């Protein structure tokens, strides 16, 4: 293998599994260390730099970081990254004075953001400090978008939402509430320098089965129903409720139903559990509340008697699975009737743009999804950008935030007359963590503690009101234990082949056998003959330059390194060093700074 190019910004970034998995590339280990030091405000600001809404995401993020967490490969359970984020948000001081200031003198460019959800808010957050004038249009009377309408308040309290939205809006957004945009043409005629569409995926999918129309009074579209609860339009539901679908919206629906008076709630799934779309922890939370999850039931028809819904008929299915767990065949065993007073459909949602006229140069594909560039988020009409669920269909908040960051860069470039595709590349900085003899400026000792369990409000208490937040947040003791589970994957093992005397000290001391000195070979062949076979192909091998005495190479399998630093501690020549990698993931402000520098050079 060729020596690993650790100068490439992606190499060490990938080693920090959580940060690489996070769409917004939040510097997770850094903020966990700050929490460990009790520096909650600083931890919050590290978060906010990347993900803008730490308080919200600390409660409801889909946490792509946690399945990626290295700890989950060493033990069973990853670090509770998401809930530690909430700790930073809950215990922070006022951060208003720490946020970038909005300049009094504007740069003369006006931007329209449609929708006041997480994507639009992120665009505003990034562009306000650069002097842009942001006008944000929201159809409802409150900002927040799907974060407000689709996430129940027992998971995300309204105060948390209000506070983090205010941190952006109060810095000078011209927020127009109750201002639904019905015509893109009209908006474009107003002469904005750029338009950002962040309207989400507000259309719930329909289930067109016999009886749908006759039973309409008791059949609800999940996201519309949740929206009505959020705005206080619905306050009750029948005793027996069926939820069709088993995604995260279904989980929010079934738990909301319990709080509106239902006592018998069943989530009806077509397939076995391993095919569920809902996150494992959301399923657990629903099951804790005694929601029944029924598998292998395929909806057949709504059963209506005397003009009223009495339940639903299902085909009970049986599946053939192959060795890999894939479905190879299915059979109907029988039909089954399940009684219900109300049925809620939670089988997906899509974006919808009835208000964008044809002939504007904004193209859609055959599924009515806009044609949007994956990197620049620009539509086929220059100056019109899409982000969040409206761009590529439903994902989750953290994706929408990153779309917002990227779209903000594009909007800046577009307004400054630069090519939107011409963007700053990511970078990486490395700094040694060596303090002195046997001292590293991070807690390098491996802590065998198990993942802390989030305490919940008792089952008796939590149903009394719709907005009692179920999760109580970690206690001080839990925080103290959980932060030490983080392996500090951003404190990288950096190797310098010319210093190595091939004494084997690092190899002997490595607790997880990730180091080997061996003759070089091809990657496939090397992976098989390391001290412990490197079976995880998603994790890189770090290969050194040839060593000076034997021409062998030092190979590190990044997969299970616990970043304990013992290789560096044991190295007599400091060929190994522990260096913190800081990933530089450019935002609009960095583009603006680069512009200034370029200008200063030419002047």
């Amino acid at each position, binding site marked *: 293998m060729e020596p690993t190019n650790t100068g490439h910004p992606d190499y060490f970034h990938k080693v920090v599994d959580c940060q690489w998995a996070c769409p917004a590339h939040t510097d997770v280990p850094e903020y966990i260390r700050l929490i460990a030091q009790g520096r909650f405000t600083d931890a919050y600001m590290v978060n906010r730099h990347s993900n803008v809404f730490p308080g919200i995401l600390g409660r409801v993020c889909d946490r792509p970081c946690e399945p990626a967490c290295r700890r989950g490969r060493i033990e069973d359970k990853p670090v509770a990254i998401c809930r530690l984020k909430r700790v930073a948000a809950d215990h922070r001081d006022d951060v208003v004075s720490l946020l970038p200031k909005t300049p009094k003198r504007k740069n003369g460019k006006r931007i329209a953001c449609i929708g006041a959800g997480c994507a639009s808010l992120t665009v505003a957050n990034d562009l306000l400090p650069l002097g842009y004038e942001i006008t944000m249009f929201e159809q409802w009377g409150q900002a927040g978008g799907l974060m407000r309408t689709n996430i129940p308040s027992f998971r995300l309290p309204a105060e948390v939402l209000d506070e983090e939205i205010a941190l952006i809006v109060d810095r000078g957004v011209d927020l127009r509430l109750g201002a639904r945009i019905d015509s893109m043409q009209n908006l474009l005629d107003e002469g904005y320098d750029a338009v950002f569409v962040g309207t989400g995926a507000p259309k719930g999918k329909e289930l067109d089965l016999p009886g749908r129309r006759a039973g309409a009074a008791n059949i609800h579209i999940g996201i519309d129903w949740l929206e009505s609860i959020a705005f206080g339009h619905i306050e009750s539901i029948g005793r027996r409720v069926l939820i069709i679908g088993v995604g995260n919206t279904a989980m929010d629906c079934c738990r909301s139903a319990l709080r509106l008076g239902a006592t018998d709630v069943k989530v009806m799934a077509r397939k076995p559990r391993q095919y569920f779309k809902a996150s494992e922890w959301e399923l657990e939370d629903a099951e804790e509340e005694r929601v029944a999850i029924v598998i292998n039931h395929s909806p057949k028809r709504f059963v209506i008697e005397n003009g009223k819904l009495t339940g639903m008929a299902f085909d009970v299915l049986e599946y053939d699975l192959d060795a890999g767990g894939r479905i190879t065949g299915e059979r109907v065993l029988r039909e089954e009737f399940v009684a219900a007073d109300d049925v809620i459909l939670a089988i997906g949602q899509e974006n919808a743009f009835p208000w964008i006229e044809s002939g504007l140069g904004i193209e859609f594909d055959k599924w009515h999804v806009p044609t949007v560039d994956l990197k620049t988020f620009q539509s086929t009409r220059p100056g019109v950008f899409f982000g969040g669920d409206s761009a590529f269909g439903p994902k989750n908040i953290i994706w929408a935030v990153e779309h917002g960051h990227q779209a903000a860069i594009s909007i800046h470039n577009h307004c400054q007359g630069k090519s939107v595709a011409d963007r700053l590349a990511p970078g990486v900085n490395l700094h040694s963590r060596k303090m002195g003899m046997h001292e590293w400026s991070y807690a390098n000792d491996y802590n065998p503690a198990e993942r802390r369990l989030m305490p919940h409000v008792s089952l008796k208490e939590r149903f009394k009101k719709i907005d009692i937040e179920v999760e109580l947040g970690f206690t001080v003791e839990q925080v103290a234990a959980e932060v030490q589970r983080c392996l500090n994957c951003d404190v990288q093992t950096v190797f310098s082949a010319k210093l190595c005397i091939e004494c084997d000290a690092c190899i002997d001391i490595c*607790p997880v056998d990730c180091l080997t000195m061996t003759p070089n070979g091809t990657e496939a062949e090397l992976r098989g003959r390391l001290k412990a076979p490197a079976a995880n192909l998603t994790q890189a091998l770090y290969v050194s330059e040839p060593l000076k005495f034997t021409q062998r190479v030092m190979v590190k399998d990044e997969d299970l390194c616990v970043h*304990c630093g013992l290789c560096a*501690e044991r190295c007599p020549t400091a060929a190994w060093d522990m260096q913190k990698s800081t990933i530089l993931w450019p935002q609009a402000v960095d583009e603006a700074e680069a512009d200034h520098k370029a200008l200063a050079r030419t002047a």
Partner: protein
Amino acid sequence: MTFMAKPKVRHPSLPKNSLGLTRRDYEGSMSTLCAGCGHDSITAAIIESCWGLALEPQNVVKLSGIGCSSKTTAYFVGGGHGFNSVHGRMPSIAMGANAANRDLTYIGVSGDGDTLSIGLGQFCHAIRRNLNMLYIIENNGVYGLTKGQFSASADVGTQAKKGEVNRQPPIDPVLLAMTLGAPFVARSFSGDKEQLVPLIQAGMRHRGFAIIDVLSPCVTFNDHEGSTKSYAYTREHYDAAVNADFIPFAREITADYSAGESLPVVLHDGSRIVLKKIAPGYDPTDRIAAMAQIQAGMQKQEFLTGMLYLGRGDREFHDLNDMPQRALNSIPYEQLTPGSRAMDKILARFR
């Protein structure tokens, strides 16, 4: 050294031996030697060897004298029996323990000072008695604990850290052991576990006195230019003469050893050492010729390494002394100690 202990966390797919133990289960306490010390690598090789042979930790005896090397017995097989003796007196303790219980596996770890200076006499007599043990010399050419004075294995012309040149000729433990008739003599290097681990395994399984002289650079006092025991010098001047593959009794021979340069030797327990000759004309079963070749190499500043001599059919200490087949500690007291009346009878024969 470090104050940071190796954490217990381990690679989840670490292989297990027939006892269900991983390599990590054969570790001992935290090493307090200098970072980069060759001795730590030898410790790792011993751990690997014990794991590979699936030794039950409670059946392992670790013996040592005084010195950096002698500290290392604390760093492997934490579940074994350990004895840290007076300087240079490890062979006596090994002798006594072995006499009392012949069923255990004895590993002695000593240094060039402990073996070749203060303990030279003890070393020689352990060989004469053909004590059934593995004797490892961690050889770095200096007294590390007392800050780097030349030891008895320092080569003529080698320089100390501050520049003094050694003028006294070295004692070579390999040649000495061969002269005294040791049946298993090997030399290796701490930085070459591929060679060292099979030698340690073979030495533990071999019946009789097995000695491995392991060149083990002292990273603090003897790893500079001008030293003949530095990592760099050793890497340049060590030459494998004969490598050994150790094949435990139960395992089938899978590699192809039919080539004329391989020689399988069956040990008393049925396991085999397959000798793979590397240096042309070197015969590890011909003691006289081997000694000549080793000496010739040394004159050219070349250290021949590997399985340098393997004798056959030697009788170990218990055979030489008509000892019972059972361990003495398993023989009932009455049988072991016939009592004062029997003693009187024996004494009467000399009156």
